[in-house]
């Protein structure tokens, strides 16, 4: 029946139903990913962010929540300039991390 409005799908992520095996492998390759405090310095300094929606902070959070497609899609906006690497207060080699994500999650 059409009531003139629709139900939007919930954006809630049920972590019990998420497959994090790829993330665990990424964590083995790049243990630094666990050091991220989601401060957003990387996203704030990203020159591509304003034009492509690229945000390293969101990529890491998406991977931790099993939203791989969204994370990998977002990474396609990265130019590997390395500015995020310079500003990270936790000293994470974000450039290396991005390359590792691309390799593991099958992105060129």
């Amino acid at each position, binding site marked *: *029946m059409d*009531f003139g409005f629709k*139900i*939007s799908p919930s954006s*809630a992520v049920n972590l019990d139903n998420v497959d994090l095996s790829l993330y665990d492998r990424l964590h083995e390759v790049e243990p630094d990913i666990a050091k991220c405090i989601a401060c957003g310095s990387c996203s704030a300094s990203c020159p591509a962010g304003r034009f492509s929606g690229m945000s390293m902070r969101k990529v890491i959070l998406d991977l931790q929540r099993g939203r791989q497609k969204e994370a990998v899609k977002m990474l396609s906006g990265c130019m590997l300039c390395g500015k995020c690497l310079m500003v990270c207060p936790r000293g994470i080699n974000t450039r290396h991390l991005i390359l590792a994500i691309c390799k593991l999650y099958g992105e060129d």
Partner: protein
Amino acid sequence: MIYQGKQKIWADYQKEIPDDHWYYVRSCIRQNFFPGSEKMFLEICRNVLHKDFHENESHTTCGGIAYHCDTIPQETVMTIVARQFALMTESGYENYVASCITSFGNYIEILETWNEFPELEAKIRELLWKACRREFKKPKYVAHASDLIYKYRNLIAEKAKYRLVNRFTGEPLKVVEHIGCHYSKMFPSKGVGGAEYPYVLCGMIEAWGGNVIDYPERRHCCGYGFRQYHVKANRGYSISNTHKKFESMEPYHPDMIITNCPGCPYFLDRWQYVIAEMEGKTYGENGYGIPVFTYEEVAGLVLGYDPWDLGLQLHQVAVEPLLDKMGIEYDPKRKYEGLNHKDLMRPELPGVLKCC
């Protein structure tokens, strides 16, 4: 955590509720949605527990719906509320109990605003005098009607004819409690248990034998949210919120939902029909929905009142499966029989949601 420390923190979330002598104000919408609830509240307080509850036929809306829909300014709401307080003062009462959660939130918000800005209170006193030549004293205590039933919960349990127990299995019924947002989310210190651990309905459920379900979206809004529903373009947002709650509580197989707000039971009840029609999904057993009740209706059921006198025939989701589980006797033929055997007529049955 050290036990004494925990006790001290919990003590901060308690609320002083006087035992007797209350001035009662009704809700604008509850008598249309759940016609037996307010009647049952007064019936229980006056005739079962023999307390002094007074109401005045001159009282009006508190203006809360218009205020939260952004159609009238706060000064107007304040003047309306000041008139209600004037009626209370004229009746000789100092304790003020509201039937509606939004009214309760509204009264608390206004009293707190007047405490912070006394010049505004003086202005409202002047406006009230100009408008209707009335004066008022601020209430000593403001409570929501569910606070009172919470306070009397053990007295009700002593007189109970039925308990919230499944008579087939002997297990306590699995009950979802839903607290109206305006109860303690705005002023946590004014509700029993504060905003994070509101105990007002849990206390009733536990005292009457049920088991409270804790589910992820327990403190989420029912979806009404005033502008979310009243603006037709936003109704998809309203039902999406309700849908999210039902999806979250579904794995716990609740037997019933108890609420303490006028809007929440209405939307949790009626949206189940809409979700069933839109998505073909029902959340109860065997194609039925999850019955939704106000706390007065549950108190009435527990005390042994006739379900049809409580107005349960006006619910969208059929209540009969729950009545059977509790072992409450009812006459199906009397379901749509009004006062003096007047035929209330049968509603059209929904396509998906199973009804009796």
